[in-house]
């Protein structure tokens, strides 16, 4: 039943936004009753088209006052029903919020309104040498806001990652109409990753009114080849083999004969349409050097797996046509059938051939045509089940076929949705994927941001319950205090290292009932007197490692060194260099530790696929899945990365891992002074080079810029050559370290990110464009406070570490001054004599209230690591 429209709401909206921005005619509203999906439709009661964030916020405020649901809509290209206003209400169309507000190429970010069309942003960026990397098939119509809502993927996310990897911060309107930013665009800010949580939340946690997106340099060269296989299964097997061989193409896309038939003629592909024929579109990119070689290796693997024809697309026009064709398959289904149901599941890559076999079997069993496209490199299969909606039996069979594929997928470690979202369409599958506790945790977060249920109701959560009921069930669970169970709790001040996660769960449960706080740790640490310290150090080793999937799940207590030892025999690695490799993976995740190769490989935020977490009462929840793309429910993994043990105890971690690069070398440029070093950084940033690390090292010995290049030997040489020239032009003295020397150099360098006795260790994060100015302030302040500072920075990321020595009072004052100048200044370690005068976590962020609300909702009795992250130490 539709909520009755209070008569005054439409008038109020017209007054606030202008009559032109309000649509209320029934026939016009009808056109907003569905998105790109075709299953269920329902019109909104009114549509508003704000042009600014202020107007959008005002619309939310008025809708809330009238008690109306609020559904945001971008271009309406989603195919899971995410933008269908099932309960009516106020639809906020972002179509007129289509401005790019500012672009900072040096910081590699842009501030955009949510209605900016993905392709338009890329058309603007391309001549400037940059891209917004997420490229969903709908990109020529879909908006950045919609991409964020669904955490959209696309063919190129095999290499570049999904939307949330490219969103630095969002501005959100809450249900009261208040706007807040989840960040300011610096990398890896301290605190809960609300940006990561909002991305993929399908409009249920608020309305996004602006976003700071990350820009990626356009590659110098691109190679595309179309490989033709005699069967879907053969093509899928080739994909696994390519990944297993350690090359990471930009994309590996699969199209079966039906997909070929849909687009072959219109896009002049000239491919054979015979049944069975399957095309793989393979793309590699990067610097020109070594790229042909890389493609040749992939072609050889394809041939070995039965490819009977290989067609390179050499010129950009042909490449563009191939990609347009691939991205048009779903839209071209109208040529084959009147409707389709799209399955969007991701399995571990090695399971893809098996899944494709099963799809073939089900196609025959259900007597329906299936058109297969797949982001094969990601293990993301997209069988489009073709049917005629006018035939009820076909409708039913299409649904059942899709359900069977999903069930099989879940059985093999797959997910309900990889990139399109749950929307309306896949709610029913959620209870098969999540345990009751996991659903309750989702609902608890839902209630923090959407307490009245106004934002996009009837989405994501199963229809037979409500988020409010689920959250209440969790709250009731946590409210229990059983004295009998409390008896097993150790006394505060105890250090415990349970034998198993199950034992840890018992321990947490006992502490919960006893009202004792818990501090998670990964090793042996000093005990806080008023809490039980629980260490994961006894849980080691792999839980699930299939090297060809390039993912691994390990127990949280596994040390980084152990992890690297597990990976090394398979020529794989985690690209993280830290001073103390004995730290546990769990603690590295909880503290979101970074290293020099953040530039080339990203950070934990981008690598963690799944976490097993013990809730404050010891209940086990599994977040995420061990597949590379997943939008099943909220991205809770992001929330727990960097949460510093305040939300739960991490017991296991599933990670993306990377092939060892065939070659690596580091160029060291001794620069005359900081200013010239900074011009070298500018030059490197503006070049077509893709170094995996660019570090700035300054102390009393001078200034060095270290650039690491990894990959094909020819590409590495090209980097060294070009960077050498850039450094020498600026008066730099250059040397190159390789092999053991290179390892030794980095082992030495990372000690600069670690605490040293008698020194304070600070970490700052600034916009990369402000790096030089920040250095200046850091130096000036150091002189004034008479402290000695060694500066080390992931320079192109804007992440700066300072080792500070001096009189304790001066060090404290220095820290306080830097916190005032740079909000993201964190005091990582300090000698006991230094009494900090400013918050050790830096200035509380703009969204601190939301973070606190999350903490209170998830851990209402403040059991987990109290007193951390600006949270007060008060317990109930």
């Amino acid at each position, binding site marked *: 039943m539709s909520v009755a429209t209070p008569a005054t709401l439409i008038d109020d909206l017209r007054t606030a936004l202008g009559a032109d921005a309000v649509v209320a005619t029934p*026939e016009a509203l009808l056109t907003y009753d569905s998105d790109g999906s075709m299953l269920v439709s329902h019109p909104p009661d009114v549509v508003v*088209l704000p042009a600014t964030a202020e107007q959008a916020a005002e619309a939310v405020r008025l809708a809330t006052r009238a008690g109306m649901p609020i559904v945001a809509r971008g271009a309406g*290209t989603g195919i899971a029903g995410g933008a269908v206003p099932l309960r009516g209400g106020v639809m906020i169309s972002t179509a007129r919020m289509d401005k790019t507000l500012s672009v900072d190429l040096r910081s590699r970010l842009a501030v955009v309104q949510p209605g900016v069309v993905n392709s338009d942003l890329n058309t603007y960026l391309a001549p400037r040498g940059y891209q917004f990397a997420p490229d969903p098939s709908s990109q020529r*119509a879909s908006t950045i806001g919609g991409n964020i809502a669904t955490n959209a993927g696309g063919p190129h996310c095999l290499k570049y990652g999904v939307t949330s990897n490219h969103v630095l911060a969002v501005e959100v309107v809450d249900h009261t109409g208040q706007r807040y930013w989840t960040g300011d665009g610096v990398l890896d800010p301290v605190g809960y990753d609300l940006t990561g949580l909002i991305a993929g939340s399908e409009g249920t946690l608020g309305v996004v009114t602006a976003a700071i997106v990350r820009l990626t340099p356009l590659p110098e060269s691109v190679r595309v080849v179309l490989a033709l296989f005699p069967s879907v299964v053969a093509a899928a097997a080739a994909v696994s083999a390519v990944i297993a061989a350690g090359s990471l193409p930009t994309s590996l896309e699969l199209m079966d004969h039906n997909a070929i038939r849909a687009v072959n003629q*219109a896009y002049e592909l000239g491919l054979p349409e015979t049944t069975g024929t399957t095309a793989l579109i393979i793309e590699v990119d990067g610097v020109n050097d070594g790229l042909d070689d890389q493609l040749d290796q992939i072609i050889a693997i394809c041939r070995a797996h039965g490819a009977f024809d290989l067609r390179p697309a050499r010129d950009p026009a042909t490449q563009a046509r191939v990609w347009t064709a691939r991205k048009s398959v*779903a839209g071209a289904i109208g*040529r084959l059938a009147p409707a389709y149901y799209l399955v969007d599941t991701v399995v571990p890559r090695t399971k893809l051939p098996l899944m494709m076999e099963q799809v073939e079997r089900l196609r025959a069993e259900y007597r329906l045509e299936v058109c297969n496209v797949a982001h094969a490199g990601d293990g993301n299969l997209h069988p489009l089940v073709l049917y005629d*909606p006018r035939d009820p039996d076909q409708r039913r069979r299409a649904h059942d076929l899709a359900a069977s594929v999903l069930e099989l997928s879940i059985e093999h470690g797959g997910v309900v949705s990889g990139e399109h979202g749950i929307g309306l369409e896949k709610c029913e599958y959620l209870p098969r994927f999540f345990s009751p506790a996991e659903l309750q945790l989702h609902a608890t977060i839902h209630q923090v941001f959407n307490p009245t249920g106004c934002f996009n109701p009837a989405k994501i959560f199963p229809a037979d319950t409500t988020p409010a009921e689920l959250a209440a069930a969790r709250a009731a669970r946590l409210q229990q205090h059983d004295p009998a169970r409390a008896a097993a709790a150790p006394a505060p001040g105890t250090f415990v290292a349970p034998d198993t996660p199950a034992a840890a769960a018992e321990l947490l449960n006992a502490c919960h009932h006893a009202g004792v706080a818990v501090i998670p740790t990964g090793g042996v640490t000093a005990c806080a007197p008023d809490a039980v310290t629980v260490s994961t150090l006894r849980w080691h080793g792999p839980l699930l490692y299939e090297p060809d999937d390039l993912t691994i799940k390990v127990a949280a207590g596994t040390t980084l060194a152990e992890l690297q030892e597990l990976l090394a025999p398979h020529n794989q690695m985690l690209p993280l260099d830290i001073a103390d490799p004995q730290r546990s993976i769990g603690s590295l995740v909880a503290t979101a530790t970074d290293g020099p190769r953040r530039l080339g490989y990203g950070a934990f935020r981008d690598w963690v696929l799944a976490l097993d977490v013990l809730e404050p009462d010891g209940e086990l929840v599994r977040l995420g899945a061990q597949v590379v793309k997943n939008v099943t429910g909220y991205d809770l993994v992001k929330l727990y990365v960097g949460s510093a043990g305040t939300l739960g105890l991490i017991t296991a971690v599933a990670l993306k891992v990377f092939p060892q690069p065939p070659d690596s070398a580091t160029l060291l440029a001794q620069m005359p002074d900081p200013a010239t070093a900074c011009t070298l950084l500018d030059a490197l940033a503006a070049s077509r080079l893709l170094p995996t690390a660019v570090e700035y090292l300054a102390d009393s010995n001078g200034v060095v810029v270290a650039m690491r290049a990894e990959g094909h030997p020819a590409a590495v040489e090209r980097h060294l050559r070009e960077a050498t020239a850039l450094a020498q032009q600026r008066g730099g003295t250059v040397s190159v370290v390789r092999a053991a020397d290179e390892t030794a150099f980095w082992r030495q360098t990372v000690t600069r990110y670690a605490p040293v006795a008698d020194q304070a260790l600070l970490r700052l994060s600034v916009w990369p464009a402000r790096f030089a100015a920040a250095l200046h302030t850091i130096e000036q302040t150091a002189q004034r406070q008479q402290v000695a500072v060694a500066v080390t920075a992931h320079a192109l990321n804007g992440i700066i570490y300072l080792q500070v020595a001096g009189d304790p009072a001066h060090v404290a004052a220095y820290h306080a001054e830097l916190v005032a100048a740079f909000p993201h200044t964190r005091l990582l370690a300090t000698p006991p004599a230094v009494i900090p005068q400013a918050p050790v976590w830096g200035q509380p962020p703009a969204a601190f209230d939301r973070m606190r609300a999350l903490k209170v909702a998830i851990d209402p009795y403040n059991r987990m690591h109290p007193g951390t992250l600006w949270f007060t130490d008060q317990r109930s």
Partner: protein
Amino acid sequence: MTVTQPSSPASQPVIPLVIGFSAKDKPSSDIINTCVHCGLCLSSCPTYRETGLEMASPRGRIYLMKAVDEGRISLASEVFQEQMSLCLNCRACEAVCPSGVQYGAILEASRAQIEQARAGKAGPPATPGAPEPKLPPRPLWQRALRGAVFGVLFKRMEVFRLFSAMMRLYQRSGAQWLARKSGLLKLLGLADTEAMLPPISDHFSVPQGQILPAEGERRYSVALLTGCIMSTAFAHVHEATIRVLRKNGCEVIIPPDQGCCGALHTHGGDLDGGRELARRNIAAFEGLGVDAIIVNAAGCGSTLKEYGHLLHDDPAWRERAERFSAKVKDVHEFLAGIEFNRAALGRLNLTVTYQEPCHLVHAQRISAQPRALLTAIPGLTLKEMPESSLCCGSAGIYNVTQPEMAMSLGARKIDNALTTGAEIIATANPGCALQLAGELRRRGKQVEVRYIIELLDAAYRKVETPA
């Protein structure tokens, strides 16, 4: 919870209570159902880009057509009628549609449905038992204007030429306010021509069966469509076209008895009027034995190429129409498809940007050829403008029926063109030429608007008569 299904099951036919389509010239349900609602058309649609409104997008309009077709909304719906009118019929959506929805066909049929119902000539409803497809008639002045324009002016070329001559007299005698006020000047393409250089030719191109020999060896025999506005306001473009064709070994025949192509009629919902003109043109060009029928205006070209579709239900003419359409070639398409004469091209030191006529790039998918011709001219630099294929807002009589949208699209186009710093905007359609020139004149800009064929002609003439 109310959940409506996009389509009702075929097993239970529903007799609608609202006014639906009539059987004659009904928008094809098959075409409508080919749309899978993916939305990839949205960003290509000028009216969606301008308004952000779903119902002003191709997908939204098809959804409205579908709703009328399924009896869920009435043909009388204001939103439906307004959106059928607001559409420019630029067919940019058609060019990007992955499913190949023939949008132009269903839009024109929808407009025909509205006009038939308003004229009381709709015939029986498509769904037996549904109410009679009848709408209140248009106001008298609109009927009179439509009658005069569709029924007389564009049907009888001698009247058209006489009227154009009178209007030109008005324009030059200073009494142009009268003509401008009536909107007819715009319609005849004379309102904005004073901004054009060289000034419009003093004479009109009158098709009288002229046969103009090829220069040098005769390689092709072609016939030229003179049309309506092109033969009056843009007669000099015809002259340039003929010179360029002859320079390329073409014998050019200008058959008598031809007339307007009927684009305005078919786009404006007067399909029968369009058919009458189509039959006349087919008869005029039949039996000439030419290699190609050449058109130099994008809108006319796409219309001629679709005569087969227009006369599909006419058994006596269907095949003749298809044969005719198969011969039609846009002049750029034709020249780029032969070994055109590059040697005789003189140097033009010009920076040019290209505004793509919708009916060239979208309706005929001709995009590379005009650029190939332009860049073949020595000295000429082609600087691409943003959104070069977004409609300029002219769209036939659109700037009379939807002046506001036409105006804002015209402004957007000129904004985009001016970012290139080009001194000439090249195009290939009279509507575009007038729209661009009008907007430039309003802004007092010195940028010129030229047909591509004029630039080619100028380059050829440069060699003949060195300055």
